[in-house]
């Protein structure tokens, strides 16, 4: 449906290794991975999918204001996340839950944000340089580019990776990011997850040509991968981040994947897309093919049940911690708007505290 002759694939939907001219340069990177690393890929994909389902349930039960599922995109996300080095910086869009988890973010922070307790609330320095979610489409591509320019100015042995969607590629910000990234030869990898939809708008409204071709007009090499192939995502991102880190300038990866669920908990995809398309992609599921591959390499039932148990544990833990969350204090509304004390905001905070206190005991 959307793979092209340029799509790099290392693992077929049937779970077998693909050996061809496109995969050849990348296969050695996979050969270097030991069994534990491969199993970790699987573990993360399975656990996050279970987490995603639990969060969706919590939203339906009124515990969250909104949920943004990543269902179907686990391969692109897990593979690319494992390709980054600890010193690298990651700028997500808003669907990259497992990338955050791999970088060390307690995914409860995402739950808190989408429950409506905070506007983000994690601190990148404490979460493996995984920056905040950006709900405004495409803006983070410029922030990431600027961050990478700083890395270049400092001569740091680091790179930046920024995630965005197919819809985002239409935003001026993303084009400007490519212009700046190329102009300054910034150490950045632009990681596009083409999940084929921007809410109800299909990708062909955003682009008439495959999106991996777009960066070449900016002077940035682009490559298209099967984003439901965690091995391709890992190997191609590793090679590109290494190139960026070693001073070869920016890189662009288009990962072909599919948003298997709704855009968010507010959305109903039956209004705009066909069942056949969903079927096509569910046959290319990132987890199913990787499970087949691991089995062919000797992974046993004990391993898969252990992963399933870990997924259940996380789901139960998230559920319990969500129910235990307390309403944040009103004072949080006024906190951290400015660094220095601010006469206007401080006066409002004081007024608000006194005002709410005036109700104490009234309803008793």
């Amino acid at each position: 449906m959307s793979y092209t002759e340029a799509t790099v694939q290392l693992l077929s939907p049937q779970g077998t290794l693909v050996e061809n001219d496109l995969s050849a340069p990348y296969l050695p990177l996979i050969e270097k991975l030991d069994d534990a690393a491969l199993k970790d890929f699987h573990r993360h994909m399975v656990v996050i999918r279970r987490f995603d389902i639990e969060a969706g349930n919590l939203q339906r039960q009124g515990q969250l204001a909104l949920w943004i599922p990543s269902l179907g995109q686990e391969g692109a996300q897990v593979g690319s996340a494992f390709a980054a080095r600890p010193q690298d910086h990651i700028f997500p869009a808003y669907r990259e839950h497992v990338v955050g988890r791999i970088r060390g973010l307690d995914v409860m922070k995402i739950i808190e944000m989408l429950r409506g307790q905070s506007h983000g609330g994690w601190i990148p320095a404490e979460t493996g340089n995984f920056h905040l979610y950006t709900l405004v489409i495409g803006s983070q591509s410029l922030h990431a580019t600027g961050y990478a320019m700083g890395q270049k100015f400092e001569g740091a042995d680091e790179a930046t990776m920024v995630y965005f969607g197919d819809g985002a590629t239409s935003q001026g910000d993303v084009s400007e990011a490519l212009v700046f990234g190329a102009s300054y030869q910034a150490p950045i990898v632009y990681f596009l997850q083409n999940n084929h939809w921007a809410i109800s708008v299909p990708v062909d409204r955003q682009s008439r040509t495959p999106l991996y071709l777009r960066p070449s007009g900016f002077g940035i090499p682009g490559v298209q991968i099967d984003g439901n192939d965690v091995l391709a995502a890992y190997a191609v991102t590793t090679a590109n981040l290494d190139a960026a880190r070693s001073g070869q300038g920016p890189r662009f990866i288009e990962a072909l994947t599919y948003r298997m669920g709704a855009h968010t908990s507010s959305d109903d995809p039956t209004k705009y897309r066909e069942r056949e398309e969903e079927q096509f992609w569910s046959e290319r599921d990132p987890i199913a093919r990787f499970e087949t591959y691991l089995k062919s390499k000797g992974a046993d039932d004990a391993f898969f049940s252990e992963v399933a148990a870990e997924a259940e544990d996380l789901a139960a833990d998230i559920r319990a911690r969500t129910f235990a969350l307390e309403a944040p204090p009103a004072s949080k509304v006024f906190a951290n708007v400015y660094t220095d004390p601010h006469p206007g905001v401080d006066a409002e905070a004081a007024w608000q505290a006194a005002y709410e206190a005036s109700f104490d005991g009234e309803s008793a």
Partner: protein
Amino acid sequence: MTILQDAPPAAAAPAVRETMTMAAALNRALADALAEDDRVVVFGEDVGALGGVFRITDGLRARFGEERCFDTPLAEAGIVGTAVGMAMNGLRPVVEMQFDAFAYPALEQIVSHVAKMGNRTRGAMRLPIVIRVPYGGGIGGVEHHCDSSEAYYAHTPGLTVVSPATPQDAYALLRAAMRHPDPVVFLEPKKLYWAKGEVDTSITAELGRAVVVRPGSDVTLIAYGTSVPTALAAAEAAGAEGRSVGVVDVRTLAPFDDATVTDAVRATGRAVVVAEAPGFASVAAEIAARVGERCFSYLEAPVRRVTGFDVPYAPPKLEHHYLPDVDRILDAIDTLYPDEA
């Protein structure tokens, strides 16, 4: 206000009188305009097959076709910038911004081009564009989905800024906006999308006119959009305590209807402006200043404002601390009677 004279008197949509939601009223206004004037085009993100994330354009693509109602690439500057060109070319674009904060990428187009083209061409090139913006909070929306962004537009000379508070006004004001010769920023209070009221599509409304929605002899509340029902509820509660509190629905923020507001305040001598947006440098601030200038010698107390605080819009679990509500309005009314404290 002027109405474009060259509008073709195409077959007027048959008038209806029904109870409907504000969302349905807006949908009907768009449909009637599309039916009556083939220069009207409706576009934006997800307005086609989906009918918009709030379903305001529901069914329009099916009824009027892809040329009249279409999805755009995901780029707000692109949406508004191309609307400018289409309007130059004789079309009457009605564009949807998906949420308040997602209109900001288009701000350059709006402020520097939409608002100024008529002025720069010495009136020769008018831009009859309607920019629809669902705005405001109170819906448990996550960040960037609840901004009250009206001040940015109201502060921009060249823009007409409208915000209805009832299904009837939503219908009539959107029709008026689409007939208007100049660009209109049409702010839709998303919290009221599903509130119902009677709509008579034969009733027309003029832009630039406020309306007294509740008479009162002691205090005047001045509100717009989502704050109108809140102000009405506060007036009701104050009435139960023996105070006669009136409410003015501003409806058009710019140009501002000084006459209606001034008359109402002069009759009571006490005024409270209610709005969700942060109060600093806000539309509420402008209203308070105008009332102060025009009604000074009639006032029994300084004009008060009940607004959002000067902080980023609060996340869902905190928004009730942020939003003006009935109690805060009643508290403000009490401060207008210092002798009774």
